[in-house]
């Protein structure tokens, strides 16, 4: 309540301009979309519903961001409203999918993203209404947008379920996984908010941002090929699927010169980290100033890398090292490179927001103690869900593969996630870890969750190949 009061005392200046602008933007997009729909004549299709959700989530993100910057209470009302509208459209898309496929939307990575975005929107509204963490939409809504955009690229056709997936346990397992992962995502966002509220120095955030983006580009550069190319998965337009050489082996093609560009960007995003280290050593503030400038430069370069990647990957034809001839590429075949690039830009922008609007943000958040407690509570919800998710998966595997545990990479990483959160709980309960250390632990836990969700599917071989 105290936070709300503080926010409302602030003058509501310039608030209406943003409201009008975003409102007009949404109306314009809907008008354009409507013209298209009139032409095709199919109003309530899944694609249209998703597009509506995208527009609303976009509006919500702008309002949340606007609230983050100006603190105008009206913005948060409109942001909630837009989130509700987006959620409504998203629910429609989920229902449409469910009806069309005849099973809950959990069977492919597309359907799982659909459910994930839905859960995220619901949790955002809960966090906002129940726990009064108002700016959380600033983090979660862009994530939802990236999710919806990714969905546009992935194959959307309803595929029949292979025999192993025809089980009630699929739904139990995946529902629990989505709930657990969304709770972990929330605990991560809360831990970040805690670090802001805990007066953690912006320099530390600078180093973390730099480290994170550098990690993204370093992992992209594992695809660095001879002559400075970057290898991406080939895509067959007719079959709308990745090209495979043999079972489980994707065919990679090399896009020339893109690798060099990524190297340059890696240098640019890593530079602030190096400068930060120099500053720690010499205490010369000149380094820090330079580091902040480098963040700007790196954002420009990252945007450039994104543009080049999109232009060259979309509908290009390139040579492969593994097979003769040219193969087509598509953005749809590299969703994770794309989201990595977008994520890097997004994190750098968030850092800038923090740099400029630190004190405003601090006013709008609950107290550090409260955030710490809520983080713990979300993990207290996530951990039993994780446990049940693993148990349901094991029971299902026992019915399908004849073994409840086979050390499949996905299983192993789920167990690792479980162990990391178990570590968090033990340190917190028996060692009394509170505050910053606990927040770091929560962030680490979410990083492991993300790796389990995406990384294992795309980087490691295994039986969870359909998801």
């Amino acid at each position, binding site marked *: 309540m105290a936070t709300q009061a503080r926010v409302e005392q602030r003058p509501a200046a310039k608030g209406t301009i943003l409201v009008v602008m975003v409102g007009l933007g949404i109306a314009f997009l809907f008008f354009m979309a409507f013209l298209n729909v009139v032409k095709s004549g199919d109003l309530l299709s899944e694609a249209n519903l998703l597009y509506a959700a995208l527009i609303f989530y976009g509006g919500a993100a702008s309002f949340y961001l606007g609230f983050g910057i100006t603190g105008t209470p009206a913005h948060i009302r409109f942001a909630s409203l837009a989130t509700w509208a987006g959620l409504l459209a998203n629910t429609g898309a989920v229902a449409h999918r469910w009806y069309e496929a005849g099973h809950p939307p959990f069977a492919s990575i597309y359907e799982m993203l659909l459910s994930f975005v839905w859960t995220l929107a619901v949790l955002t509204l809960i966090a906002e209404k129940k726990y009064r963490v108002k700016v959380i939409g600033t983090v979660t809504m862009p994530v939802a947008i990236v999710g919806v955009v990714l969905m546009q690229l992935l194959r959307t056709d309803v*595929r*029949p*379920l*292979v*025999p*192993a997936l*025809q*089980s009630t*346990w699929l739904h139990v397992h995946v529902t629990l996984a989505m709930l657990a992962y969304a709770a972990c995502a929330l605990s991560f966002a809360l831990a970040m908010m805690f670090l802001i509220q805990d007066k953690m120095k912006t320099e530390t955030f600078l180093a973390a941002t730099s480290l994170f983006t550098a990690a993204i580009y370093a992992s992209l550069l594992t695809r660095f090929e001879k002559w400075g190319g970057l290898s991406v998965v080939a895509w067959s337009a007719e079959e709308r699927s990745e090209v495979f050489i043999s079972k489980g082996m994707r065919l990679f093609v090399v896009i020339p010169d893109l690798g060099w560009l990524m190297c340059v960007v890696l240098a640019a995003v890593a530079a602030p980290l190096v400068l930060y280290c120099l500053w720690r050593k010499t205490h010369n503030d000149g380094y820090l100033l330079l580091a902040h400038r480098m963040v700007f430069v790196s954002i420009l370069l990252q945007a450039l890398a994104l543009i080049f990647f999109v232009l060259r990957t979309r509908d290009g034809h390139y040579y492969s090292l593994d097979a003769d001839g040219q193969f087509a590429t598509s953005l749809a075949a590299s969703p994770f490179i794309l989201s990595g690039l977008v994520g890097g830009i997004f994190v750098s922008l968030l850092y800038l927001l923090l740099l400029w609007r630190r004190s405003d943000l601090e006013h709008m958040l609950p107290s550090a103690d409260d955030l710490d*407690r809520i983080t713990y509570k979300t993990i*207290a*919800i996530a*951990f*039993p869900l994780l*446990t*049940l998710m693993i*148990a349901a998966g*094991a*029971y*299902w595997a*026992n*019915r*399908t*593969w*004849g*073994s*409840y*545990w086979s*050390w*499949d*990479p996905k299983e*192993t*990483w789920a*167990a*690792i996630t479980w*162990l*990391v959160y*178990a*570590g968090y709980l*033990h*340190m917190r309960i*028996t*060692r009394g870890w509170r505050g910053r250390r606990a927040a770091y632990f929560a962030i680490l836990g979410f990083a492991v969750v993300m790796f389990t969700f995406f990384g*294992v599917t795309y980087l*490691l*071989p*295994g039986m969870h190949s359909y998801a």
Partner: protein
Amino acid sequence: MAASLPRKIWQTLGGIKTGVILLILTVILSAAGTVILQRPTTDADEIQRAYSPQMLRLLDAVGLTDVFHAWWFVLLLSLVSLSVVTASVQRFPNAWRFFARPYKSPEEAFRKALPTHKLMRIKDKEAALRVAERVLHKTGFRTERIVRENSFSLFAERNRISEMAVYVVHASLLLIFLGGIIDAEFGWRAFLSLNRGEQASQVQLPNGGKHQLAFAIRCDSAGQENYSDGTPKRWWSNLAVLQDGQELLHKQIVVNDPLVYRGVRFYQASYGLTGKLDRLVLTAVARNGSHIRDVAIGPGEIASLDSDTTVRLADFIPDYVVEDGRVYARSNELVNPAAHLVVESKKSSQAINVWLPPIPGLEQNAYSPYTFEGKNIQMAYFTGLEVSHEPGQWAVWAGVVLMGFGLAVVFYLVHSRIWVVPVRDARGQLQLWIGGAANKNKDAFEQCFDDVAKAIECEIKTLESGVEVPAALLSAN
């Protein structure tokens, strides 16, 4: 010094630091096991291709190509279990004392130190305690009057079991480990491939050996259903369990729904063509036109066409090719089939080779008293069954259920205690001291405590101001 060494080990094992180090080691090594290609799940060639020979030798030597079965990984997991056990044993007595003999009548020192408490003026001890009892009872607390030599007070609590739940969780983890150990020691996995009508009592182990079952399993029929786009929708097999020639059990299994008999489970794993013929249906027409009939024969079977003539299916090739005057099979797929029939006559005891289609140099089709035409080819399918025996799985499931229960209690049930003690302050004024403590979720408890204290205060006030009943009368009631 010598005597203290085991004690030191005991202390170290139970420490949280040891536990965390072991956890981190487990995490790192398991992660390594997902990144490095593992022998049991990867083809030997693929591993050979992925690593250089020296590297592979090194990985094999330290067991990194089979992390989850390496002795050091097993040792690590045992150490984790040992650490859980010691930590639990070390902390248990304290917790048990706390659980079994709750602290019911607070001393003055305790009362002073407790952060959550409230004092209110009262006129009568007995009436105040009675009010407190009623309010606490309504809020869901179990209350108890504590009578000591020179004092009496009230103790109320809720969800004491919450103090023990963490041991339940630890025990459940050990139970799961136990199940895993039993299965690693006594369990096995195998594969069994059956054709229709075939039976077997031996299954193929992954290491190439065989495992003898105490009974036989027979596949009566098996099949596949497809979606309209041709991808498989369902595989099924009708299995029968036989012992001493008697059929004991019959079940249709599908993927996700195995047959279980005496702890051995049969799973539908795959389904496909064996490349062998099941039945060939032929239309046989006698040369003199007197006779037309359909015959169905399997490989090697003989069917009679009339009282004198029989036909035998000598060979069936699903995908044939002729080279140097001989017939070879090119593949197991039904692409280009050929059948070799032998038509025999009892009277003349002559055998004529009939080939469908006629293969020059081999066929004697023109001499056969019957002409044949292929009508239907039914290929034999095999059903692939995974077989497993996991005697420890019940411990695992029991552990899982116990863990779910334990975690729910650990996280969502709060052990809260409230003490109500009538005291006298420095000036001898009678007061009611109310104090409370909770083992977690303290902010929510404080809210609850405030509500309870307020309700008690309110009721006491109305009681004492509203109706002027002499204190003696009230207590006499």
